[in-house]
């Protein structure tokens, strides 16, 4: 059986991280969000809910799929764009 932890999955993917974030999350706006859909759907598990109700986001291992952008219910909480050309995720076999 090929069971793998999320960590092991992420280690198979190659990222070339840009200096600046292509996605930013306004944690203040997340405080009034009850759904936290981004936490659920992000295939890379990059959204971490915090005790104070905000959400922590790390763009480094982003798949650039856009799922967080589409599920977010808080107007303006997620500022989303693609990373600069040549940066971000690179798939080798998928």
């Amino acid at each position, binding site marked *: *059986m*090929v*069971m*793998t*932890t*999320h*960590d092991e999955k992420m280690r198979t993917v*190659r*990222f*070339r991280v840009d*200096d600046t974030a292509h996605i930013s999350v306004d944690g203040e706006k997340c405080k009034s969000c009850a759904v936290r859909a981004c936490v659920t759907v992000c295939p890379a598990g990059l959204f971490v809910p915090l005790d104070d109700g905000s959400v922590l986001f790390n763009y480094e291992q982003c798949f650039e799929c856009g799922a967080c952008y589409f599920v977010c219910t808080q107007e303006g909480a997620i500022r989303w764009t693609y990373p*600069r050309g040549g940066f971000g995720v*690179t798939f*080798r*076999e998928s």
Partner: protein
Amino acid sequence: MHIAVCLSRLPDPNTVEVDPLTGAVDASRMLYILNPADAAALERALQLRAPEDRVTALTVGPAEADSILRDALAVGADDVLRVWEEGRTSTRPAVTALLLATALRTTELPDMLLCGTRSLATGSGKVPALIAEYLDWPVVTDIVDFTLQGSMVRFLRRLAKGARSEGEVMLPAVLAVEAGAAALRYAGLPDLMKAKRAAIPVQDLSELGLSPVDLNFPAPTAQATMPPYRRPREIFVPEASLPPHERVLQVMSAGIAQKSGRIVSGSPEQAADQIIAFLADRGFVDRAG
């Protein structure tokens, strides 16, 4: 002033995957990058260039290595040159250094040669000194910062454990910089497109006046690769009798070790005392009295 920069195209270490049992590397899964320290060297060269100056980027490698020379052209290198002998599959530091030094000699000796202090491939870190030897130039390695002062270069070099040293070197010289010395600029669109269409000049051994015999250096008789110390991780198999959800939970928690430290809480005063007691216990601060 004419500044030459040596670049190398090498596998991104993040894509170098080693079979934990055989130590074999799957070359088909590797992606190639410009060596980060070389990128820093290129950026420093571009920053140093006055309007009347010239920056030449060189590399030793097969046709695929044209890509890094195009990248160099796109960010502003004036000339590029690739050195290669058809049929060769790889080079060793001594060969790379000899080819680069000879290419510089036969075309035009620059006033300064910049390169990365180490490659992320074999990471030998020998090439800068070897080129210096073949050119009979001085060399400085592990440079984190430098400034040009007339016919001298004042440099800051990284030593072990965070120490640094200041020094100076006479030009012409080989300066080997660290990856952190500068971040390479991002090319503009017209330059990128122009670089993509540029013809890349190539020189082979005969053009350099070398014969294959010149490239024979003593080599190891046996060479093998293996993964680093880490023992291969056993693949975890969940119990088949469990319901799917629990099987997943089992898998998700497998192998994630946590420290068996202690977690304390209390007033800030108590917390501070706890931290100090802990630091003193481990010898990080002297206990009072």
